[in-house]
């Protein structure tokens, strides 16, 4: 059965801190791994990763995939209160499976 596990489940940091969110997966016919940010309503797309070792970067956010060890990380540097959200990891395999998410709260 395809499975995606995220850690930690929740995290509280102060503005300016750097955070690392983890996503491990066990899937059949892996195609890609995606990261989303969800604030109040619709999850918004952050990154799509298909190849190992190639970092995707957007401003203070970056992500990388390790297909040998079956995990991905999402890094956020110099966190701001606007980064407070649920971060979701999703795999595209035979199924589209989401992890349970990491709740990030950034305190000012």
């Amino acid at each position: 059965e395809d499975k995606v596990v995220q850690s930690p489940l929740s995290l509280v940091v102060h503005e300016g801190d750097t955070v690392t969110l983890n996503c491990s997966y066990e899937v059949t016919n892996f195609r890609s791994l995606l990261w989303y940010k969800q604030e109040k309503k619709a999850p918004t797309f952050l990154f799509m990763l298909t190849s190992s070792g190639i970092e995707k970067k957007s401003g203070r956010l970056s992500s990388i995939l390790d297909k040998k060890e079956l995990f991905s990380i999402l890094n956020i540097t110099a966190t701001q209160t606007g980064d407070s959200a649920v971060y979701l990891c999703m795999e595209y395999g035979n199924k589209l499976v989401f992890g349970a998410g990491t709740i990030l709260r950034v305190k000012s």
Partner: protein
Amino acid sequence: SQTIHQWPATLVQPVGSPLSLECTVEGTSNPNLYWYRQAAGRGLQLLFYSVGIGQISSEVPQNLSASRPQDRQFILSSKKLLLSDSGFYLCAWSVQYAPLHFGNGTRLTVT
């Protein structure tokens, strides 16, 4: 550009009443369409997906059903709601193996 509309935004329904949630997509043809349910701000559970008109795959046996009467319309229904149907329902679309794009969701409370 593509847009996705989902309504209503919130809904309060009594146990045993019917349900109909609608989702429409604009600006793309033959999209893959999805219904997800999210419990208490956590992960998303895939309920149904469709790769074409009239083609529905169910991922989780439950009290719900889905239909796709037109290419860009996806409907989630129930004949009789249960308390356990409460949750946040999200519609999404994609083209094959591309990122999913989500609607703003419907918060359903069954009382």
